[in-house]
């Protein structure tokens, strides 16, 4: 498991940068016949209808669909922020049914990394503190978490922005802080919800470059977008409509992001 690897590295898949596993290897996350039904009074809304999905280690998957198609719901389920009404979710083979909210919170901080459209940094904290908060929740000591967060921000090309607060940073810089925070715990899965949605095209391109580099190094990424061009950078596109998967296709040659790779992740 990735936790045994050197600590400030995104987790490389055991088989290096091989294409999505076609079988045999255990998927990072596996959804089986998952439904999510919201009932507000007498009205029942089926947000997800009998969805099954596997994400293999080293995959770079984009979930697409118009609004209301259920992609946010799917993202929340994969991110363990929500529970399915029916069906099961397995993370690294571990069934999550019956886990308490606190168990899920602990799994999130140990195994998942979140990147949001609106960055979602803590507004009053410095970049450094934002990045080490997941470590703090995990009980990592002060010196250790400082060192790891610093190293991670340096990798993101933010060595001179450690003590700046979010409002002192550009959108691209804020998103890189968010990426650093998502990576700090060596997650087995990175979830990116419209990560370029609030960025100009240049910064957006830089974030895509970053994600592709992470994936090249073995990171498993699930990205939600409504933008075909963004999805074209990933290896696999899952299309949702009315709560069901209507297409699941692999891209033979994803577009390579062209922005200069500012962060050095090699």
């Amino acid at each position, binding site marked *: 498991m990735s936790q045994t690897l050197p600590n400030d590295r995104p987790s490389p898949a055991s088989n290096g940068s091989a294409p999505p596993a076609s079988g045999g290897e255990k998927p990072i996350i596996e959804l089986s016949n998952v439904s999510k039904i919201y009932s507000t009074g007498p009205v029942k809304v089926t947000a997800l209808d009998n969805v099954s999905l596997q994400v293999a280690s080293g995959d770079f998957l984009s979930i697409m669909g118009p609004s209301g198609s259920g992609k946010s719901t799917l993202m929340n389920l994969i991110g363990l922020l929500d529970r399915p009404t029916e069906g099961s979710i397995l993370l690294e083979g571990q069934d999550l049914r019956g886990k308490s909210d606190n168990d899920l919170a602990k799994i999130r901080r140990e195994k998942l990394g979140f990147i949001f459209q609106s960055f979602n940094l803590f507004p009053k904290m410095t970049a450094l503190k934002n990045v080490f908060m*997941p470590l703090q929740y995990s009980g990592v000591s002060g010196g250790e978490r400082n060192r790891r967060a610093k190293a991670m921000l340096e990798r993101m090309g933010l060595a001179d922005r450690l003590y700046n607060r979010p409002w002192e940073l550009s959108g691209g810089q804020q998103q890189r802080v968010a990426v650093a925070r998502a990576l700090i715990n060596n997650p087995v899965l990175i979830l990116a919800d419209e990560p370029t949605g609030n960025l100009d095209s240049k910064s957006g391109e830089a974030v895509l470059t970053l994600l592709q580099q992470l994936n090249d190094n073995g990171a498993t990424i699930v990205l939600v977008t409504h933008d075909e061009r963004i999805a074209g950078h990933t290896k696999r596109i899952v299309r949702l409509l009315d709560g069901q998967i209507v297409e699941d296709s692999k891209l033979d040659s994803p577009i390579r992001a062209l922005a200069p790779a500012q962060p050095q992740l090699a």
Partner: protein
Amino acid sequence: MGFFDYIKTALENIGSAKLRSLLTSLGIIIGIGSVVLISSIGGGVSSTITGAFSGLGSTQMSISSSAPVTDNGDQSGFGGRPPGGGGALGGAAIAGTLSVDDAVALTTVQGVAAAAPIIDVVAKVAGPDNTINIGVTGTTPAYQSATAKTLVEGRIFIETASEVVLNQSSAKALFGAADPLGQSVKINDAPYTIVGVFTDPVSPFAQTGAGRRAEQSGANSAVYMPIAPALTLAGTQKVSQIAVAASSPDVVDATIERIRTTLTERHNNVQDFTILSFQQLTASFTQVFNTLTIFLAAIAAISLLVGGIGIMNIMLVTVTERTREIGIAKAIGATSGSVVIQFLVEAVMLSVIGGVLGLLVAWLGTVALGRLLGLPAEVNISTIATAVGVSAAIGIFFGVFPAWRAARLDPIVALRHE
């Protein structure tokens, strides 16, 4: 997350809105400040007075005529009270049912160390330069031990001699700075030799402004002379009081009962006297005063309640303001427990900071008021510990509900919050 991390984060949050935090803590500052101030001042007054009483002697008691003597207000009088206060002018005396023989009889009662009859009379006392009308106390040499008087110089008079003892006030009034020892005074034209000087009676309020004014006006002036000529001056054979000292503080209550029995027998089974001990008086005074202090402090404590509600109010606002941050925290792995602790620690910090500032205010107030009233400023460790403990308890009590509200936020909903 370590406990220190919670405190650090809480302090950062509190510090990021200093004015708001200060205003939120104000209720606690005022509450703790006023409760501590009232208890300190109350404690200072109480210990000053009880200290003064016990200085006068916890073995002392006083027997006064009661039944046949009507309405002379003398029952609260002790041997040490400023003479002249209850005495009628023109040589009229306060007398009643007690006699010199009663005092002699009491000396044989078990537990009695000394018993001295007292008659107070106001007389013309003439010094070398001036004549003043002051209270003259007729008594026996046992008076000194019965009332635990201290001699500044000289000795107590001999009962059969024409000798008197002054106190510092009367010595000053009659002789100024000169040494009165061996000098003579005339009391209603009869000459007496001064053989000693007592210290002035210690008033519990001696350090206060009122006490100082009394000293300056000479209201404490007194002359002590043998009982026989004093009774003649007063024109009576009855004494107004008998001052008694018990052999130890522990036997005071038992001794009072034996005195009551002895005297009642001597007075044909009529209890026409009242016995009061300093112990009883001190105890009842302390009780009344402490009740009053507790009552005032309880009223002041209401502002603590209001302060607590203020903290809860602001914490609820904070939870709403930080909904999104709570969502982020939960998404990246904060458990509900750590969210609860974070908000609880913040409420407790606000409250404890208020408590500490309140203590500071109370301490300054106690010192200032203490200077003004001449009382010892008593803010002790237990007061500090109690104030901090109480404010922490208030923070916990009023912080639980907002913290619980924060913890039960759904991260998905919280993340969508603008």
